[in-house]
């Protein structure tokens, strides 16, 4: 299998790169949805580190998406280059996530979920009220202001396709980072914490510190996707960061398969894809029934596969016998 396997990965990557070129003119919708799925992939792969690997339920992850988006917007209006904004947003996301984590990581499961929910709401309401900074409900950029565009050497990022490749690049990084984290000392420690936090502490894992690393890592991915999306859509307003968005992210991870990269990817496609497909199939006559059906589909899928469609299973390692 090894020889054939060598060709599949490069073939896939090539296909992902070629994909938008085929549809450049005929179907910009396909590229737009693909790009949005990419954004959700980065978000969910980031959140998966907190929920999937460490088992900490987070119901306010959109707060970090918002922090990334708003910092990117404010900096971009004062025409800071995107390639400086990105690390700044990631740093901000990580720091805020770390501060939130300090007092809260000793909380158990559902209590942490509630505190993250509360934090998510606080950020959304603050974004709506802090008119002087975020221009409140009127969103950014204000009248007469413009986001400075991203330019990468000669290319100026304006079309969907530019952002598609930018997002694809970061999706790839998110997948590689998750894979490498999974197969590392830290990854095993995270899963051990999910399995039995007390046993993990007494097996030598500094549970508080390791949890904090995972928690902060998620925050960085959250802020990163916020910064990219702000530049892509060109306008952000508080109504984009509602509680329901955070809940959808959790649903994507759980339905897809917690702690399993392919599972999370499938979950994102399902929960972003199904409403879009329903939009087409239902057309105008049944447009009102889209969300009704979507709710029913969610219940059906989770009852059919409670552990997620692609649950995570530990990879087999080959065993070295010692002479």
């Amino acid at each position, binding site marked *: 299998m090894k020889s054939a396997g060598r060709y599949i990965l490069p073939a896939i990557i090539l296909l992902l790169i070629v994909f938008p070129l085929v549809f450049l003119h005929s179907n910009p919708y396909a590229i737009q949805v693909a790009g949005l799925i990419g954004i959700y992939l980065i978000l969910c792969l980031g959140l998966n580190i907190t*929920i999937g690997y460490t088992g900490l339920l987070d119901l306010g992850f959109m707060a970090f998406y918002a922090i990334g988006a708003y910092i990117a917007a404010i900096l971009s209006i004062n025409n800071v280059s995107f390639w400086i904004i990105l690390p700044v947003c990631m740093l901000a996301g990580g720091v805020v996530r770390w501060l939130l984590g300090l007092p*809260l990581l000793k909380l158990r499961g559902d209590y942490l979920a509630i505190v993250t929910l509360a934090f998510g709401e*606080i950020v959304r309401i603050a974004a709506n009220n802090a008119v002087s900074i975020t221009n409140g409900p009127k969103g950014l950029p204000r009248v007469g202001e413009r986001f400075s565009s991203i330019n990468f050497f000669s290319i100026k990022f304006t079309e969907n396709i530019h952002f598609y490749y930018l997002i694809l690049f970061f999706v790839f990084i998110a997948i590689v980072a998750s894979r490498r984290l999974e197969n590392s000392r830290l990854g095993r420690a995270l899963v051990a914490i999910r399995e039995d936090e007390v046993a993990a502490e007494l097996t030598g894992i500094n549970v508080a510190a390791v949890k904090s690393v995972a928690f902060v890592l998620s925050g960085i991915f959250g802020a990163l996707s916020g910064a990219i999306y702000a530049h892509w859509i060109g306008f952000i307003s508080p109504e984009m960061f509602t509680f329901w968005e955070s809940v959808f992210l959790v649903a994507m991870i759980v339905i897809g398969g917690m702690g399993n990269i392919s599972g999370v990817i499938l979950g994102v496609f399902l929960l972003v894809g199904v409403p879009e497909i329903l939009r087409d199939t239902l057309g105008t006559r049944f447009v009102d029934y889209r969300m009704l059906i979507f709710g029913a589909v969610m219940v059906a899928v989770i009852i059919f596969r409670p552990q997620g469609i692609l649950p995570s299973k530990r990879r087999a390692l080959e065993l070295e016998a010692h002479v």
Partner: protein
Amino acid sequence: MLIQQIINGLTLGSIYALFALGYTMVYGILLMINFAHSEIFMVGAYCGFWFLSMLPFLSAFPGLLIPAMFLAAIIFSGVLAVLMERVAYRPLRRAPRLAPLISAIGVSIFLQNLMMLAVSAQSQPYPESFNITRFQFYGATVNSLQIFIFLLSIVLMVLLEIFIHKTKVGQAIRAVSQNHVVAQLMGIDVNKIIAMVFFIGGGLGGVAGVLNGMYYGSIKYNMGFLPGIKAFTAAVVGGIGNIRGAIAGGFILGLLEAFSAGYISSENKNIIAFAVLILVLMVRPGGLFGEEVTEKI
């Protein structure tokens, strides 16, 4: 002004408390956050609405109308909650912890849209159930509806306390919430008890819905969402799973909201409410009345 805010806070608090009881009881027995409980609250409100508008002839004698309306709301919401548990949660009894949460989210989306499509997307005005008389004292105005809401919720809470702590079924509920398996070994039909808990929690949620409809005079298919988050916050502040905690949490949140809206800034009253929640949980991770369960090693 202070007295007026206390009155506003207590009325708001009683609705939150009744609403929070549903969350706490379901969490106590299944360790599950029932997101769809806010839709049961909404359905309860609609049930009261139908009852009032369908049977105008009854409004001739309010004495009979009001109890009948609340009874209908309790039964309707209670049955809906039992149905919801049977269809969406029972298959997931053995599933990983987060699965029922996702199922609850699906049910919540489904019910909201069902009500929007089946009834109407527009907000419906609540018919006057009985004429409201106003009393003045110390410069604050209290109306008979506010007093009725406060008294009804207190009565229901006392009944629940008695039911849970004094009756055989109540004991069974407490047993099941401690440990399903052992309770079953003691001959308790766990499924029946869980259905009972959903019925009670659902019924109380339905009553809270009717009170909300009567008090604010308008209902809508998505009316459950915002108070739902608040009621859940109240349940957690009080100590999730603890009935007295939910009641206390409800009133605390109601008063907190009234005072922060009145004295600080109404724009940020929700921020203040959520900030208090985070502070409480940092100081007492189990909530105010929740007991610290230390794990046996």
